[in-house]
């Protein structure tokens, strides 16, 4: 058996143990033989490795779930910014439609509803758990609890006993809450006249009361004043003014 046949036999797996021994002997003594065997072994390895990789790639393309998931994921990633942009555009569209084109339909009544909220109690803060004793506390507790009927009775009583002008302001707010704007207006006008601490607030609520009672010119002039003062609700006043004009 020549050297070539020995090498072929090695790859065919057909060598006897004596032939294998001969192969090993030549491998350690004959450089050319060793190089040839190594070269062929390396070639076989390379071809096998290449084939395995090709088959693995083929399998990866067949993989059903993984592929579907990856596709889904990338689609979501691509869509998200577009969807955000689209929803913002839609929102802006709806808002401007409501603001620009719906304006003539918005009555003073509706504008009042949008802008009126009872003024928060800032002069007599209630500490929960403190025993309710005096009239003011009871009045403001009722006010904060939105028990406006009860609050009105208490503020009326207070206004006969106390000279604190801010009580007029809160009574006016309670009256507005109870849709008694005609009664609220003189209280607010009076409060503004005496330059009460919450004057700007009073102006705002007075302008809303004028709006509600359809005294639009009075309302507008107050709103203009608020806008110029650049203080409490000046921005909202300016917006409201634009809506009224």
């Amino acid at each position, binding site marked *: 058996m020549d050297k070539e046949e020995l090498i*072929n036999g090695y*790859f065919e*797996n057909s060598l006897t143990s004596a032939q294998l021994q001969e192969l090993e002997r030549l491998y350690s003594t004959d450089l050319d033989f060793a190089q040839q065997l190594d070269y*062929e072994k390396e*070639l076989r390895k390379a*071809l096998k*490795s290449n084939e395995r990789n090709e088959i*693995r790639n*083929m399998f990866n393309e067949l*993989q059903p779930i993984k592929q579907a998931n990856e596709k889904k994921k990338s689609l979501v990633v691509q869509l998200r910014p577009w969807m955000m942009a689209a929803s913002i555009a839609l929102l802006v569209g709806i808002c401007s439609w409501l603001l620009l084109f719906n304006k003539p339909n918005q009555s003073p009544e509706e504008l009042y509803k949008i802008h009126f909220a009872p003024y928060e109690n800032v002069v007599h803060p209630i500490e929960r758990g403190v025993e309710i004793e005096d009239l003011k506390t009871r009045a403001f507790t009722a006010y904060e609890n939105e028990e406006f009927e009860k609050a009105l009775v208490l503020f009326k009583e207070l206004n006969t006993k106390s000279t604190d002008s801010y009580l007029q302001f809160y009574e006016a707010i309670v009256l507005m809450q109870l849709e008694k704007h005609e009664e609220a207006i003189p209280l607010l006008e009076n409060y503004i006249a005496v330059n009460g601490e919450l004057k700007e607030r009073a102006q705002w609520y007075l302008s809303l009361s004028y709006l509600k009672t359809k005294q639009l010119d009075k309302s507008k002039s107050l709103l203009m004043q608020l806008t110029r003062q650049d203080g409490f609700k000046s921005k909202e006043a300016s917006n409201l003014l634009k809506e009224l004009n």
Partner: protein
Amino acid sequence: MTDEQLIADMKNRNRNALKVVYKDYREEFFRFAHRYDTQQSYLEDIFQDAILALYENAQNGKLDTLKSSVKTYLFSIGKFMLFKTFRDTKEFVTDEDFIFDQREEAVFTEIMEDQEPTEKQLMLVANFKKLGEKCRQILELFYLQGLKIEEIMAVQGYENKNVVKSQKSRCLKSLKDLIQQ
């Protein structure tokens, strides 16, 4: 497709047979392998390696006298690989009492430990692809499909063994020349 057909196709290095095996048994293999409480991410690799081992052992003639079904053989390879990866192969007993011989196990191990090809191997493959059709055929039959010189003579219709031998030798030399260019 019958098992006989499947084995014959694999021996002829027909990759469509592998696609059939992959598609037909993937789902069931994942269910089967789940019993050995394995992380899902490894299962795909093990399943692919098991098919590769089935494929190479088919070419080595290990399936010629197979008494069980191809599926049972494939799942036993999978189980062997699962044990080799996560447990101890000494514990390994298949339901059918398969005893893999040394050569079969050597193939499993080789596939599982398969490394990324080296630069030298990539170069060999790249130049191999430049060889003529006849050369590629004879070298693939010999090294990949594991046919003996005599078998190549019969399959390819060569006159005698010596023609095959010298053809193979010439092709190896051509490849060497391509690399040295």
